[in-house]
């Protein structure tokens, strides 16, 4: 194992958190929020993310892919426990992708935006 200091891209704040990119923080907050709403129990949560981590044939050597598992667990539990299906998620993702590509740099990305 590398010593912690040698891990690439480890956040450099003194000893605090630990979101490398904004989407990680958003995914984190959504899971905490949905748990508080009763959409899933925390035991369900840890079992789901634990199973995803265990099923990965390439172990996460650095911990940097942790929020990737987190996001996948979130999608799985949302699809299982709310009316938001995988299909709905996928359609919405494509809509955001289209809107983002149609948005000039520096402007807010608005859903439904198309190329002019």
């Amino acid at each position: 194992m590398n010593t912690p200091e040698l891990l690439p891209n480890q956040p450099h704040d003194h000893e605090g958190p630990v979101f490398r990119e904004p989407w990680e923080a958003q995914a984190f907050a959504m899971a905490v929020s949905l748990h508080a709403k009763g959409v899933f129990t925390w035991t369900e949560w840890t079992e789901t993310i634990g199973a995803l981590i265990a099923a990965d044939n390439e172990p996460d050597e650095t911990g940097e892919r942790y929020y990737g598992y987190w996001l996948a667990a979130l999608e799985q539990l949302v699809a299982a426990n709310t009316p938001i299906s995988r299909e709905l998620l996928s359609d919405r993702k494509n809509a955001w992708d289209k809107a983002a590509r149609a948005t000039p740099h520096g402007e807010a990305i608005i859903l439904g935006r198309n190329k002019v």
Partner: protein
Amino acid sequence: MAHHHHDEGSALEENPLRVKALESLLVEKGYVDPAALDQLIDIYENKVGPRNGAAVVARAWVDPQFKAKLLSDATNAIKEFGFEGRQGEHMEVKENTPGIHNMVVCTLCSCYPWPVLGLPPVWYKAAPYRSRAVSEPRAVLAEFGVTLSDDTEVRVWDSTAELRYLILPMRPENTDHLSEEELALLVTRDSMIGTGIALEEEPK
């Protein structure tokens, strides 16, 4: 380095797109409130962190009654500071002594005592730590700069969704003159995970 054609506009990567899809649908269906998400992020980025745990440890070093309560009923002892878990988890505190060194891992995922330590460091979430903390804890400790004498027993505690551990590190020697607040500055995050020991003097 990828070159984006100017036609790509503000194209987002895969994970941010998936997060935007989830968030916009969850907001529309009334499952999450965007302001509440921002507030949660702010709490965990700026307000909850290892300083919480350090305050608990320093209190235990100066107040034997509090320490006894902390070791027997950590959940409620920690609640006195206003630090409380959102997942309804129980807290247990394990005391390091000259004969026993405790350390914490989550072999399944990354269960961690958020209310007292904030969010886990990246290495805590990595596969090597999750497996080697159990299979060869002394080697892992050595990599963190902690060398123990051969007659010190190492105990490794595996966190779960319901049970989170905090390590009570040994109070450094020659600190009788320090106040509780000054002592808290000697308590590092790693010393409360058990992958470090408390500092002997204040960080410069």
